[in-house]
């Protein structure tokens, strides 16, 4: 049994059907990279997995639980699935430390001292302990994104979702965030990553999924999908990426 089993997933926004009959399995400790053109449904898929969108059909089973069942406690599921957004989405009115301790204290009821000890340990790990009392907007983009990752990790999630986390960063800051994700991967975290960083996808992912027309057009190990794609849509997509000098 896979940790995450998605079957027959459908999601549309008005007349625009974004995901249709989408199927994907992710095993524990696996790292899956989603690639595809803008609007191909990568972000929508991640938002569905984190229950930020209501699916229209199909099923998402996380660790044996059908999380698309309306009877499940969505907040509890969300606290077990970490997500990191493209635009960081840190709370600007709180210090870095308070950003990280918010969910443990208010969702899981951890005491202030314990939550702060956890958060500081997490900040040590991402190398930002010195910034604990700083406000998010005084940090660089890369630092903010590392705080956002720490904020997601402190809930000890079963699964981490990354939604184009480096797209809003200056090129020289991309490396520090990707390095953190590589560390996570080597520690055995299960990850689903939507990205345009093809080189990174090649290095860390166990499998690459190419999305087109709302479902999986092609999936396989990165050395196959990125170097020798079968589906003409993947070939076309990768040709444009190569033309842009991004692979």
């Amino acid at each position, binding site marked *: 049994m896979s940790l995450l089993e998605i079957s*027959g997933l*459908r999601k*549309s926004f008005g*007349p*625009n*059907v*974004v*995901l*249709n*009959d989408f199927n994907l399995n992710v095993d524990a400790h696996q790292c899956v990279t989603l690639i595809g053109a803008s*609007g191909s449904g990568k972000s929508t898929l991640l938002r569905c997995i984190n*229950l*930020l*969108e*209501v699916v*229209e*059909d*199909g*099923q998402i089973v996380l660790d044996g639980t059908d999380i*698309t*069942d*309306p*009877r499940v406690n969505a907040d509890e599921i969300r606290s077990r699935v970490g997500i990191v957004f493209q635009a960081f989405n840190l709370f600007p009115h709180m210090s870095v430390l308070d950003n990280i301790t918010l969910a443990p204290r208010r969702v899981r009821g951890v005491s202030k001292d314990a939550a702060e000890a956890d958060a500081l340990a997490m900040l040590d790990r991402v190398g930002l302990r010195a910034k604990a009392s700083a406000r998010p907007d005084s940090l660089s983009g890369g630092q903010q994104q590392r705080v956002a990752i720490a904020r997601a990790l402190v809930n000890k999630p079963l699964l981490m979702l990354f939604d184009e986390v480096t797209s809003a960063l200056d090129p020289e800051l991309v490396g520090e965030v990707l390095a953190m994700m590589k560390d996570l991967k080597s520690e055995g975290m299960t990850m689903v990553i939507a990205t345009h960083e093809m080189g990174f996808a090649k290095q860390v992912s166990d499998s690459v999924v190419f999305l087109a*027309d*709302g*479902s*999986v*057009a092609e999936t396989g190990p990165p050395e196959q999908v990125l170097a020798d794609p*079968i*589906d*003409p*849509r993947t070939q076309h997509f990768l040709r444009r990426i190569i033309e842009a000098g991004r692979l």
Partner: protein
Amino acid sequence: MSTSLSKGTPGNPETPDLWTPSQLQLDRTAYRQSRTIRSIAIAVISTVVLVGLALWGILGSAGWPRFQKAFLDLSYGKEVFLDILGGLWLNIRLMLVCGICIIVLAMLVAVVRTLRGPVFFPLRALATAYTDLFRGVPLILVLLLLGFGVPSLRIDWLPRDPLIWGCISLILVYGAYVSEVFRAGIESVHPSQRAAARSLGLSHGKMMRHVVVPQAIRRVMPPLLNDMVALQKDTGLLYVLGAVAYDAILRAKIETAQTFNYTPYVVAGLLFVLLTIPLTRFTDWIARRQGWVGGGLV
């Protein structure tokens, strides 16, 4: 290879979308519907119980018969209804005239307060002093001071009509509040918008006029309309200036003074509520249209 084509190509409206919900989805929809029905039932029952308890408490109180006679005399209420309704028309006109003046004055003050540079210091100081003063003084004092004070100065070219001074008091006091609402809106527009506008060669004034103020107004629409609702009611305070403005409140007061029955006040109150409800709903509608309430799942 193109696995999903048999199901219609998503994102392409020309191919028909042949999706039919699965049994699983139908079950989920049915469950959600049953939850909705359950919440509606809970809401209805709790409302009935709450209203029932309140009525039981009020109707069972010792003073209820006397209260009913003094405040809820139906036939007397009907008798004075048209008279008070006629007075309400004055309140509506006052509200419209004052409202427009307030918005113009407030926008002016707000823009002046956001001017930068030492050259504008006197203007800025004046605007700041104005808001500080008129937000601090109670409306009723401003009404009395201007309504009775200025005419007693006997300056020929100034209007003597206390009604006009009543309106000016409302405009001055509300203008101070509303200018702060506008200023908050203007300052909430991100600096990058100003930079973008100036980079295109727009002057400070043109930038305010075409870029900053339009965005600010959209943002402050709900609090602005909230202040207009409050203004609608406060036009009733003009009755303190005596028999100059036969508005709904003054007419109710005259009636009550003759019969010692408070029903006219209740009638006037109901009319004011009926007058403000459309404006409140309009405010809600604006807020919803801008996606500020109930947006999405979280």
